[in-house]
């Protein structure tokens, strides 16, 4: 008799625990984003306001672009916030009726040694700058990690028909933006970076080229559809996407970084 009572109590506890978990799960949105986005501080800035406005809780994880997108495939995310058009399109093309929704952009920048031996500073496009770096025999550091930054970098090399892989002056770190900037600083070499991370990073490199057309970096959100995972928090993901379009959100994005760096780090897409 006592044993039966114990079993009933345990089962009861288990059920209420499960109910609690299920209850909170609906209010939690798992967001997978990239290390660059996380390192820029934008999410830490937007998160509290979104959570207050919507009543949802945002759980944000960051990784390299490839791994961040992979979380969408393994069911570890309800929404993706990434910036690599080709990889995003590959993802949404997998037949689960998902769409990529671009909502903001910024520019990559080319940074390098202050004395700029390749003369990058007076070029008009990133392609020209890369060519100059190649011609001058200067060292170039690449992230080499299939991130959004790396994809952009590869596209620029492709546009001048150059494959730098394996060449002595081209060093691929396979690491995040911060680590790559550290290597570039150490070797006084050139690299391409997103502006936010570069400004926040302590180094002796100079910003040599920015805001060229071929260095535009577009950020998108992708909600994981319930067709891919039945218990994905599609409602929560949509709530975040809708919130991004509000005046509050757009204003916050436009103002981010102005106080600290004198200029915005991100621009809203109209």
């Amino acid at each position, binding site marked *: 008799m006592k044993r039966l009572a114990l079993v009933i109590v345990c089962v009861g506890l288990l059920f209420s625990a499960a109910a609690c978990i299920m209850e909170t799960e609906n209010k939690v949105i798992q967001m997978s984003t990239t290390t660059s986005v996380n390192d820029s501080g934008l999410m830490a800035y937007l998160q509290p306001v979104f959570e207050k406005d919507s009543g949802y809780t945002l759980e944000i994880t960051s990784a*390299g672009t490839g791994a*961040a997108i992979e979380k969408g495939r393994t069911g570890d995310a309800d929404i993706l916030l990434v910036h690599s058009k080709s990889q995003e399109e590959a993802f949404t093309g997998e037949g689960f009726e998902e769409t990529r929704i671009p909502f903001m952009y910024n520019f990559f920048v080319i940074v390098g040694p202050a004395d700029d031996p390749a003369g990058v500073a007076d070029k008009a496009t990133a392609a020209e700058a890369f060519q100059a770096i190649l011609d001058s025999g200067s060292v170039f550091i690449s992230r*080499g990690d299939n991130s959004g930054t790396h994809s952009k970098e590869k596209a620029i090399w492709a546009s001048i028909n150059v494959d730098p892989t394996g060449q002595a002056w081209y*060093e*691929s770190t*396979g*690491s995040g933006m911060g680590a790559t900037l550290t290597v570039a*600083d*150490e070797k006084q070499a050139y690299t391409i970076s997103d502006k936010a991370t570069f400004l926040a990073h302590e180094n002796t490199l100079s910003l040599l080229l920015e805001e060229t057309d071929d260095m535009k970096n577009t950020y998108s959100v992708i909600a994981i559809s319930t067709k891919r995972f039945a218990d994905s928090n599609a409602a929560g993901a949509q709530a975040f996407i809708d919130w991004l379009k509000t005046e509050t959100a757009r204003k916050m994005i436009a103002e981010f970084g102005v106080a600290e760096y004198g200029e915005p780090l991100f621009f809203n897409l109209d």
Partner: protein
Amino acid sequence: MIKQVLELLFGADPELRQIIGVTLRMSVLSTLISALIGIPWGVAMGANQFKGKAVLSRITNTLMGLPPVVAGLIVFLILSRSGPLGKLSLLYSVPAMVIAQVVLISPIIAGMTSNIVSLRAPLINETCAGIGIFGWKRLWLTIKECRIPFVTSVLAGFGRSIAEVGAVQMVGGNIQFKTRVMTTAIMMHTNMGRFELAVALGVVLLIISFIINSLVHRIQEQTLRDRTA
């Protein structure tokens, strides 16, 4: 996934072989230098009673527990451009990784060697005193008696070396074709979501570790068997 892993392992993927090559080059060098430093250090501690032996012992034990990232940080700060040895431009190279690993592994080999020697030294010393053997001759005899256990400590050092990731990432920079080793490659590929490559490298690392551990075990067993014969 398993199929892709097997294809990578038995295929002719040049980058995989290159990574293994850099790893072995670094580890063999690290282990050799650490042994050259650690064995005499350990012998000096284990074979004699001297003033300050307890202090030296404590220092060695502390260094044995040095966290790899801390060792990496220290070497990084010394070798970076703004550090005291910056002029040598050693950061992000195989020599830098070797230096960091030597800092980590020499104390370990020293500690193990010291234990091995102090197990035998008292009896050897007592016996030698009785037949008039002292000084260098006695030391040389002691080292020769410990030569097989010394091999196990060196193998243990090698095992630590190829498995280390924190320090070599920091001072090596995981640069493709130059300083990318198995451990940093595994981390990188995992971060990028490229699990097949990570698993393939992991398997190779496991096999090497397994072989080393088996060797160490065999030698220790053999030694035990000899002693109780």
